[in-house]
């Protein structure tokens, strides 16, 4: 009922949601004093239903079984007439003031109430949307961060491959070096043998040449002048004989 009094003054305005002060404090203080840790049930969106802006619906429902639909109206009329006739409520200038002000107020609320309420609701919506956005961004960031961490862990698992590659490199280098050494040894031995062979060949060649030169020289020097003359004469004689035979052949 305490909450209902708050809404009596806010006739026609929609409730501005649970972030409105009065309702919250009332329900909160109830809970904190009784020390119950159960989560608070969600607060109602709208206030209790009222008829004609003031009279709660529960009154009508209360009187319905006994007096039907018109009951509360009759009650109201009767009360009003009673107050006026017995002069419990005296009509004076303030009555008219109250009537005028009331009329203006009701006109104002009826005309501008919904738009003001919509504006207030929009403000609230914006706050909520902002908070929601912050929450969503936080959630996506967290999931992303978890993904990244998992990925990094997977990456770290591959570290063995690096060392395998390094060891492979080392083994390959060693193998290369060994092969090169073998190659070098073979080449050196071959070179030595080839050198010996080439040396031998050179020796033989030089001996051959020298011998040929020597033989030639000795032959040339052994030709005495007398032998030279004899051989030349013999050559001439042979040539003459040859010429004769060819002439004879040609004639035939």
């Amino acid at each position, binding site marked *: 009922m305490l909450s209902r009094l708050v809404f009596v003054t806010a006739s026609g305005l929609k409730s501005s949601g649970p972030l409105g002060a009065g309702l919250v404090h009332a329900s909160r203080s109830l809970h904190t004093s009784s020390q119950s840790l159960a989560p608070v049930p969600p607060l109602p969106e709208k206030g209790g239903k009222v008829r004609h802006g003031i009279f709660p619906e529960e009154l009508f429902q209360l009187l319905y079984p006994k007096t039907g639909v018109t009951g509360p109206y009759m009650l109201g009329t009767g009360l009003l007439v009673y107050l006026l006739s017995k002069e419990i409520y005296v009509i004076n200038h303030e009555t008219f003031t109250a009537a005028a002000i009331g009329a203006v107020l009701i006109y104002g609320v009826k005309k501008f109430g919904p738009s003001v309420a919509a504006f207030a609701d929009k403000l609230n919506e914006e706050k909520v949307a902002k908070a929601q956005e912050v929450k969503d961004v936080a959630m996506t960031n967290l999931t992303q961060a978890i993904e990244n961490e998992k990925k990094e862990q997977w990456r770290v698992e591959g570290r063995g491959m690096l060392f395998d590659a390094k060891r492979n490199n080392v083994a390959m280098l060693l193998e290369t070096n*060994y092969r090169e*050494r073998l190659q070098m*040894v073979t080449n050196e031995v071959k070179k030595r043998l080839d050198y010996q062979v080439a040396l031998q060949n050179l020796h033989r060649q030089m001996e051959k040449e020298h011998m040929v030169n020597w033989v030639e020289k000795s032959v040339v020097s052994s030709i005495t002048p007398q032998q030279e003359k004899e051989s030349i004469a013999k050559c001439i004689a042979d040539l003459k004989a040859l010429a004769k035979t060819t002439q004879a052949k040609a004639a035939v």
Partner: protein
Amino acid sequence: MAGRRAALKAVDWVAFAERVPPNQRSMFNNLKTRTDAISAKLASLPEKPPAIDWNHYKTVVAKAGMVDEFEKKFSALKVPEPVDTQTSLIDTQEAEANKSATSYIEESKTRVAQYEKELEKLKNMIPFDQMTIEDLNDAFPETKLDKEKHPYWPHKPIAEL
């Protein structure tokens, strides 16, 4: 001869490349080029050098015992295998890396646990339109207005409005 062919473990370069984080990519590329160069060099060398034709030399070289002597010495010669100094270093490096990797994974796991806890908290939060200001302050402590430091409304420096 037994230690020669220390088994070359097959390295799956594709899978390796996947696991390299982007900031270490250049180092990985360098390693790969080096490895490729080394393996190319290895492939270019024959496994055994061509055998020397001793008989030919025996017939050709005049000096009697020379070829035989060479042959004997050659077959008796054992080329020493190059000593492996680096593998132990690599093993120590690997041990160190394993250690740092395990510690990194531990830290990473704690971080993941922390993130998951916060994620759970965010997921289980009541929707904003059912929250009160006190609920909001509980869920997001940074929204709490410090009423001791700034006793007058709006309880925060004007600049932060």
